[in-house]
């Protein structure tokens, strides 16, 4: 059973209006019968003896959560984690197999933009139809038309059939219908980033406005920036079960961690030329506790570990490593050589181990470790090159710049001098 961990941020608590629970789900279960062989005709039903074979797919397992009035609530998770199924149950499109969902207030579901739009009707007729579908009386549905068209900036096309609209116009109309629906609860599935830049800006403004208003939004997305920007709280679903409920930024970080998690000893991504004189055997990053990781919090210390083997004799080897960010900028570089007390030469069969802590100044984002090995301490004599030894995802709020450094720079205002 999921536990309620997250707290609504203080500003909303102080508001006093955030206390009422408007969506309450308790132990919601949903399974789909996935037919391995589906019987979908009467003929087959009559002529075959078997009932058809099914596999039960549990899309949601005991999902429980609460959403309070005025909250912007994110639901995140990988593909197939049950987000959309949950949203469809909240929207009464699917029936839950078990558990209970209770809701207060009028609901407007937007599972997909522009669903139910009839291409053979004009914008005017579609807006009315859509309003009635949302449960408005016809007169009210008609009276919304002006506001919808104004927001969509489509006033001059009010009597044009939708089939003659461009896809951009269609999306603007759909988004506008959603925004202008005066339902208390909005269910929104992945609809951001529509229209041109100006319209996107407008949408972002509206979302921020809704965030501060009394309206409640349940928002399914893959876009962690959007989650951090708009959501007060979020829920992370993993294979149909609630994995975490909490503050938006924490959940967004957990989502990234979940997404980039691999088997801990998957080894080297790309070992380079297999016939080279030195072979890459294994490479990994450890966290403080000595555990192999692919994700690390920004600023948390890491240890780099690389194991290699000399296949043939290599004179005067030098080892270069670099962490490059998503833009392929090499952010941290290391140049290493064999310790001075031993001969500067590798004999066949000798194992080399590169290990040690690194001051982790990497900015949040995805990084790739690259590796070069040269002989004779000469950068033109390349022995081995791997452009992709391993991945390391640094978690944290995005910053500008390629590294995050500690600093004590503060802002102050000198009140004395006037």
């Amino acid at each position, binding site marked *: 059973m999921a536990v309620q961990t997250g707290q609504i941020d203080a500003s909303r608590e102080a*508001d*006093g*209006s955030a206390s*009422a*629970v*408007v969506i*309450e789900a308790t132990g919601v279960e949903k399974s*789909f019968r996935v037919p391995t062989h589906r019987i*979908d*005709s*009467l*003929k087959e*039903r009559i002529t075959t003896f078997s009932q058809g074979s099914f596999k039960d797919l549990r899309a949601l397992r005991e999902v429980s959560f609460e959403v309070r*009035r005025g909250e912007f609530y994110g639901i995140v998770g990988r593909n197939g984690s049950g987000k959309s199924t949950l949203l*469809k*149950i*909240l*929207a*009464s*499109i*699917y*029936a*839950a197999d078990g558990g*209970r*969902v*209770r*809701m*207060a*207030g009028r*609901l407007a*579901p937007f*599972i*997909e933009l522009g*669903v*139910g739009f*009839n291409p*053979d*009707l004009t914008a005017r*007729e579609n807006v*009315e*139809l859509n309003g*009635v*579908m949302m*449960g408005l*009386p*016809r007169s009210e549905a008609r009276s919304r038309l002006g506001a919808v068209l104004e927001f969509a900036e489509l006033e001059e096309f009010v009597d044009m059939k939708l089939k003659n609209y461009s896809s951009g116009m269609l999306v603007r109309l759909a988004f506008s219908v959603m925004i202008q629906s005066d339902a*208390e609860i909005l269910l929104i599935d992945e609809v951001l980033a529509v229209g041109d830049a100006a319209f996107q800006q407008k949408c972002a403004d509206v979302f921020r406005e809704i965030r501060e208003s*009394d309206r409640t939004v349940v928002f399914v997305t893959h876009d962690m920036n959007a989650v951090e920007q708009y959501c007060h709280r979020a829920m992370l679903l993993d294979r149909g079960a609630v994995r975490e409920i909490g503050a938006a930024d924490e959940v967004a970080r957990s989502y990234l961690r979940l997404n980039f998690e691999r088997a801990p000893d998957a080894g080297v991504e790309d070992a380079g030329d297999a016939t080279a004189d030195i072979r890459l055997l294994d490479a990994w990053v450890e966290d403080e506790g000595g555990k192999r990781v692919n994700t690390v919090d920004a600023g948390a210390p890491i240890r780099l570990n690389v194991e290699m083997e000399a296949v043939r004799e290599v004179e005067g080897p030098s080892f270069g490593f670099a962490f490059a960010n998503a833009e392929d900028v090499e952010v941290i570089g290391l140049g290493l050589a064999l310790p001075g007390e031993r001969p500067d030469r590798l004999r066949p069969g000798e194992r080399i181990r590169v290990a040690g802590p690194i001051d982790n100044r990497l900015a949040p984002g995805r990084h790739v470790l690259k590796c070069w090995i040269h002989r004779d301490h000469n950068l033109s004599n390349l022995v081995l090159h791997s452009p992709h030894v391993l991945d390391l995802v640094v978690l944290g709020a995005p910053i500008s710049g390629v590294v995050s450094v500690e600093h004590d720079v503060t802002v102050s205002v000198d009140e004395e001098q006037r």
Partner: protein
Amino acid sequence: MSAGAPQLELREVHGPSALGGGSRRFFELLWLVSVTEFKKTFFGTVLGYVWSLVRPLLLFAVLLLVFTQIFKLGSQATHYPVLLLFNIVLFGLFQEATGAAVTSVLAQEGIVRKTQFPRLVIPLSVVLTALFTFGLNMIVVVVFLLAFGVDPMWTWLLLPVILSALLLLTCCLAALLSALNVRFRDVAIIWTVIALALNYATPIIYPLNIVPEGLKHLLMANPLTPIFQQARIWIIDSQAESVGSAAGGPLPLIAAAAIYVAVCVLGVWVFRREAPRIAEML
């Protein structure tokens, strides 16, 4: 409406259903969807209304030719040509409504899978659209009635009774077929055959009085037959054989009533049962 907003009561969410979302929304949606569909067929094409009349009139012309000139049925029934036209239009309502309803839920897949749309609106709106078309076609029928010298009768006012009986059956069948077709995709094909059979098992192109006695009683067990025969008596020929006498006893009529009720109950039951799962099965 911040701090002073009324405390809304939490209500149970039951998932999708046949009617879901309140009766006002149901009927407004039903009306709007039907009118939309109707407008699309009549104002979407150049010939519009004329076009929809061409089909029954052409069928009427062909059948009239065949059955008056070849089979010489013309003399067997009073006002046979008008009867034929009226029957074609009346059966057209039934056939068009059920035929379109079978695939209606499948055709509206997007709406069903992505919105909380009261499921029953979909097949019923198809029936309502067919009813609108029927209304327009009736204008032509009335013109023919008068042109062929059928005297206006007060029983014409009883047409709504006939229509109600036919529409109830049509609606229930529409619901049944549309729900079944989601589960078994060949229902649509099977239904076209059944509809064709019904076309011949109902006195539409032939008057009931030329059917041999034994077969006539059997035909009366088809729930459509009493409806069409009563319509003939009330609208065209008050002297036509009464439903009771054509049945030759209570048994065929009891059978017809039983089939009628069974289809209706089955339709409502199946649709109610399937409605919550329709979105998942598409």
